[in-house]
């Protein structure tokens, strides 16, 4: 005997087919409307863990990006302060050269001394530059001004470095230890810029032949030495700035490639899914039509 088919079997098979057709249609609709192929980990377990990993990497990159941006702003503040110090120091050097040529009387020298004193204050002011509420030249003591205005020339910051993390395992030191340039003033006799400036003022006011002699020899030499140190610091800061910018560029490239990987794992292929959607819709309508026709028919329709 051939297999018996009962209407109940046809009905349940039709219902099964319809619901599985509708389920895949629903799934495709979800993928299209959310734009994602992984709606739950079970859709693609390995993909889901990749998404978590890549998303975190992407968040990490955007952290590194803002770290680097912040470092660049810090460096910009420091660099412009150091340029100012450079200009001021050049001005002092001109004044010293002018004072050393012997054509000035003491009153002229006193006037020059006053100007050098003002310029010294301006150097300290530049050294107290802040970025986002932090003193950029105080090492890690960012809430303490490195120099007090006025007579005291002692460095109040520390020698510790401040770094910005710009990539996994890559950090750039953004702080400049300004005390290697400015020193602790006359009292320390360290030959650094503040000591030099204070000595120059003393020599300008001194009035003796030795003082005048010193202006043109030791002072000028010390000043040139200080300028040398300054340009070294500027070079270091400039190279840190370059590193930060290079890190930013590298970061951008990585962000693009990780975003692409993420899209590859997670995003719906709209073209392919739309075609699948059209196919499934056609299959569903066909199943509906066939079901409606078969289920209605029976011998009863033809018996008198």
């Amino acid at each position, binding site marked *: 005997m051939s*297999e*018996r*088919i*009962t*209407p*109940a*079997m046809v009905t*349940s*098979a039709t219902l*099964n087919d319809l619901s599985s057709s509708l389920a895949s249609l629903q799934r495709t609709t979800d993928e299209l409307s959310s734009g994602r192929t*992984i709606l*739950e*980990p*079970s*859709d*693609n*377990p*390995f993909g*889901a*863990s990749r*998404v*978590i*990993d890549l*998303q*975190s*990497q992407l*968040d*990490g990159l*955007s*952290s*590194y990006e*803002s*770290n680097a941006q*912040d470092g660049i702003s810090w460096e910009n503040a420091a660099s412009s302060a150091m340029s100012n110090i450079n200009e001021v120091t050049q001005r002092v050097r001109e004044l010293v050269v002018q004072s050393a040529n012997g054509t000035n009387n003491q009153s002229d020298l006193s006037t020059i001394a006053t100007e050098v004193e003002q310029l010294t204050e301006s150097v300290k002011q530049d050294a107290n530059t802040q970025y*986002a*509420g*932090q003193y950029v030249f*105080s*090492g*890690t*003591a*960012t*809430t*303490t001004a490195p120099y007090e205005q006025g007579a005291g020339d002692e460095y109040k910051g*520390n020698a*510790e470095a*401040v*770094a*910005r*993390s710009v990539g*996994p*395992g890559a*950090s750039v030191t953004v702080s400049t230890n300004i005390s290697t340039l400015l020193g602790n003033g006359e009292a320390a006799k360290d030959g650094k810029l503040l000591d030099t400036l204070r000595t120059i003022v003393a020599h300008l006011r001194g009035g003796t032949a030795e003082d005048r002699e010193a202006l043109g020899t030791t002072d000028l030499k010390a000043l040139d030495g200080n300028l040398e140190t300054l340009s070294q610091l500027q070079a270091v800061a400039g190279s840190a700035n370059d590193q930060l910018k290079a890190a930013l560029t590298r970061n951008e490239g990585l962000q693009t490639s990780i975003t692409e990987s993420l899209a590859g794992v*997670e995003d719906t292929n709209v073209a392919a899914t739309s075609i699948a959607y059209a196919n499934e819709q056609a299959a569903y309508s066909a199943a509906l039509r066939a079901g409606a026709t078969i289920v209605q028919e*029976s*011998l*009863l329709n033809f*018996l008198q």
Partner: protein
Amino acid sequence: MSIPTLQGLQTALSGLIAEQTALDTTGNNIANANTEGYSRETALLEPNPPLPIPSISAQTGRGAQLGAGVTVATITRIRNIYLDAQYRAQNSAVGAANTQAETLQLAQTAFNEPSTEGIASQLSAFWSAWSSLADSPTNEAAKEGVVAAGEQLVSAFNQLSAQLSTISTQAGEQYNSLTGPSGEVEDFANQIAQLNGQIKLAEEAGQQPNSMLDRRDLLLDKLSALANVTITEQPDHTDTVSFGDAAKPLVEGTTVNWPQALTEAAGGQLGALLNLTGPKGALTALRTNLDEVASTLATTVNQHLEKQFFSGETAATLTVMVEASEVQASGSKAVGGNEVALEIAALRGGEAEQGYATLVEKLGSDVRSAKDDQTTLQGTLTAINDQRQGVSGVSLDEEMTNLIAFQRGYQASARTLTAMDSMLETLIEHTGVVGL
């Protein structure tokens, strides 16, 4: 030798009765076409014992046997008990797979991954907060940001742990309500025991109790979704039912042995519930792994800090221990140092995150394989059920055809009766008048 005069009437009558019984049986099949658990029935017809005629031929003196009509031997249900056994074994497997898939799906929904609210995102936001703090270590808002991100992360862990614990508790409650007093197991067992008694009585009286047999088979089908069942039919037509890995049979004659202890090996829905919440179950493993991630997070973060940021060894007990003012960006260095913040920000992609990603991947594969099992097993069950339906199901086309056949048979028997009647009329009314 002659044939009794009224024999033809008897034969026609037996035909009428048989065709009517067959028609009634067909009617009953049509009425029950959509009744759950109904097996189609058929009236088994047998010829009556023939009438011996010793010497029908005057010439040879040979005898013959004259057919004496038809009788209904029994009304039997059409059913294949081997398919029933297959169906029930498969049904237990489907019951287990459904429970497994539904419960794990609940857990998967609780994880809410991948999304912007899940633990993975919160974890990532936590590292970003430390990274921001590294940019401005003295900034109060940045410290607040770290604590806020930490608290959101902790609450995501706490909530997920609570949800998983609820799912586990509900699985336990479901088991208790199915196996408890007046739960489904006891209810089915009582009905089966009662039917056993009634079936035994009917069989003793020589009747085949088709509808009771159908009802008992339907109950056994339903019982098989809860755990593995093995049916042994006894000589007195009662069924002895072994249930899961219970020590004694659940039903023996009219006796019910319940409650009894079951283990994961019971199979079916109950076995799956015990497995999920048991020490080696998927749900337990999920909770353990989540606790491990929470504990790893706490340890890896705390080891960089003097004042502990997190406390708690499990996902449920994880808490943030510090206030914004106590957040350390630096260890021994001055206020503007940021090396600690940088160390903690560098934990991104580390052990805790990898542990969590592995957990999500494991859960995803578990759910996926549970759903695949479900689909495959359900497909086989449908195929077996189709085979069973092919044997026992009512086909309306077939019943309609039978209806016509039996109706025609009834008409023909009635016509035979008429013919016999008119034959006798000829004999009685029209044969010549004697003795007048």
